[in-house]
């Protein structure tokens, strides 16, 4: 609490945020108004910026996540559009990864984790009892922070998804998918001569691109990336970012990142999370040049986090 008080202490009077439901208008920089309109009968909390989109791919309303008694996310409202790269930034432990894992229900695998609220994907509630997490995950792929190729060959790694979903009837068809995915992931030229060697024999950056190839091999609609470059060097990071750039025309990409430069380079829209709250959402340019919320500005300018 000491740290929080310190942050708050800079702006008088003290902001009741993040624990209160409303942010007082006078505490905002440049005196801009907060959006506090009603969506689906629910009130948007605290968040400033453009929350709503027309025809969103993903639409979250009042999403909260609990680990046991501890609340990790507090009533998030957010739309994510089609074919956009959406970046989530924020200090460690702010809940951005947890939020990301809501979209493919990976939080199901954590036994004491509970998600409330609604997340609509193309108009259907993904948390509904009738939604099968397995078929959801076919549509929403995920790339993890640490490259996690299976202890199998490069070819087997990419063929894993298509094989379990029977996307190819013949071995030739499967091979075609593998080749295409590796090409899309920009890894083909580097591995075409050693497709049957172990995926773990690749370098870190290659492993991460292998994981992306593995993900796009099952043709998802959304790709979630949880700090995909945090274990990589700048050159490998550059390649991944290039890859994200080429993927944006086919996929919706949600990326969690600790690097603000990365968010500003690759994303269309950016969301800033703080202590389980979604503080600000907006076009990436706006967020980085002209943030609305003082907490966002503090984080971006390096005074916080």
């Amino acid at each position, binding site marked *: 609490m000491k740290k929080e008080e310190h942050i708050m202490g800079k702006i008088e009077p003290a902001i009741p945020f993040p624990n209160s439901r409303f942010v007082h208008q006078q505490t905002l920089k440049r005196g801009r108004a907060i959006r506090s309109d009603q969506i689906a009968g629910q009130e948007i909390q605290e968040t400033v910026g453009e929350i709503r989109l027309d025809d969103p791919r993903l639409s979250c309303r009042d999403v909260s996540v609990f680990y046991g008694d501890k609340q990790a996310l507090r009533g998030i409202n957010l739309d994510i559009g089609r074919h956009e790269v959406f970046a989530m930034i924020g200090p460690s432990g702010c809940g951005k990864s947890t939020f990301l894992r809501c979209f493919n229900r990976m939080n199901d*695998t954590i036994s004491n984790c509970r998600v409330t609220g609604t997340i609509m994907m193309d108009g259907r509630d993904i948390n509904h009892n009738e939604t099968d997490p397995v078929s959801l*995950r076919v549509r929403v792929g995920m790339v993890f922070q*640490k490259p996690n190729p299976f*202890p199998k060959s490069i070819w087997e790694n990419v063929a894993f998804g298509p094989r379990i979903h029977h996307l190819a009837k013949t071995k030739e068809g499967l091979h075609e998918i593998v080749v295409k995915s590796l090409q899309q992931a920009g890894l083909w030229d580097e591995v075409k001569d050693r497709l049957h060697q172990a995926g773990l024999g690749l370098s870190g950056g290659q492993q991460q691109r292998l994981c992306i190839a593995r993900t796009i091999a099952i043709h998802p609609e959304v790709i979630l990336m949880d700090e995909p470059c945090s274990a990589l060097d700048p050159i490998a990071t550059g390649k991944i970012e290039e890859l994200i750039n080429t993927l944006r025309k086919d996929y919706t990409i949600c990326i969690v990142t600790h690097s603000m430069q990365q968010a500003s380079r690759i994303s269309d829209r950016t969301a800033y999370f703080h202590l389980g709250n979604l503080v600000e959402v907006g076009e990436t340019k706006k967020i980085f040049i002209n943030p609305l919320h003082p907490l966002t500005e503090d984080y971006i300018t390096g005074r916080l986090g």
Partner: protein
Amino acid sequence: MTGTERDKLCPLLFIMQITLIIFSILLALSVAAYFFGCRRAVAIAQGNIRNLHSLPEHYGFYAAIWCGLPALLVLGLWTVFETPIMTHLVVSELPRTFQELEPGRLNLVINDIKNMANGIIVSEETDPNLLAAADRYRSLQSMGQAALAVVVLTLALGCGSVALYLIRAKQRARNRVETIVKGLLFVCSCIAILATIGIVLSVVFESIRFFKLVPVSDFLFGLKWSPQTAIRVDQVGGSGAFGAVPLFVGTLLISLIAMVVSVPVGLMSAIYLSEYASRSFRAVAKPLLEILAGIPTVVYGFFAAIMVAPFIRDTGSRFGFDVASESALAAGLVMGIMIIPFVSSLSDDVINAVPQSLRDGSYALGATQSETIQRVVIPAALPGIVSGILLAVSRAVGETMIVVMAAGLSANLTLNPFETVTTVTVQIVTLLTGDQEFDSAKTLAAFALGLLLFTVTLILNVIALYIVRKYREEYE
């Protein structure tokens, strides 16, 4: 009873007591040296231990080691060489008639002398020469003890005080103590290795004696096992056939049945426990499974003989099979149950060691839990599972009690699990129990069987180790 009377009655006990007393004094001296060493180091450092090369404890240990170790070595050497030296001295003073006896007879005489010296009356009439020798032995013994005490304690005090005196601030006490400790660790590991080598060599040499009587090819490829041989020429007995094939077929048959039972059950229970079971169920089930491993094999044995074997016989006869009351099936089944915890516990550990990130990666691709287990978790854990199974196999191959009770003793060359068979270990037991002469082919055969069994399990263990090493770093 006075001290001298006790000396006469049981000098042996008295000698042991003296050794013990010397040992205790040595220990006390070393402890004292430790404390003096610490204090002297602190005194040299003039209160500031930064002036020292090592911590005061190291100087203490160093002094204690100098005090204790040389003296202990002398004590140890004395204990080993005391008897041969004194025997030699006594024998060299005996009249020529005794010295020219053959070694076996001479040993008997020496034993008599020792017994007399230790106050045990051997026979009514004793040779005065022997009586004199016994006296001589006794005086040598007490002289030796006294000399030992003096030498050892002087050595301890001498070395200890020199070491204490030589403590200097710049002395590299820590390094020296660590070198000595390293040497100690080396000696300990050598003891284990030497014991193994010793056991193997003794088995090998006895086996060589056996193979002088029975050709290796007869033993390895002979199809008949009947170790009863005529002890005397006029005796009516078995001709003696030492073909190990029926025994190994029996062993393999029973091990196979055991593995057929234990591998699926153990592996599946491991998968359930590590992937599906709730935490509370796991907390109860895992210790219970491990209790199964703690049941003595004798208990499994009579469980097999009294419950399982008759059950199988009755069930078999109901379906029209002719089942022996002691069958390979009964022994194999019970052995399989015995091995389940080995398979399941080891597999459970390796399955748990598969990183969660691999499971997450699979789930994120839309794999179901069972697909994830089949295609990711089990392949990743396979090397560990295989080595666990191979360890279980060597356990099954070496198992004795269950087979003795439930599978029978007659060496049948058959693959029919309803018949009675016998295994290598059971035959070793029957060859060596009871009163045996240790130079007949029959008893020596046990060593040859032991050697063969040892080779087989060794190969299995080597394969297991190889598999684990080869695939261990796969997912790291």
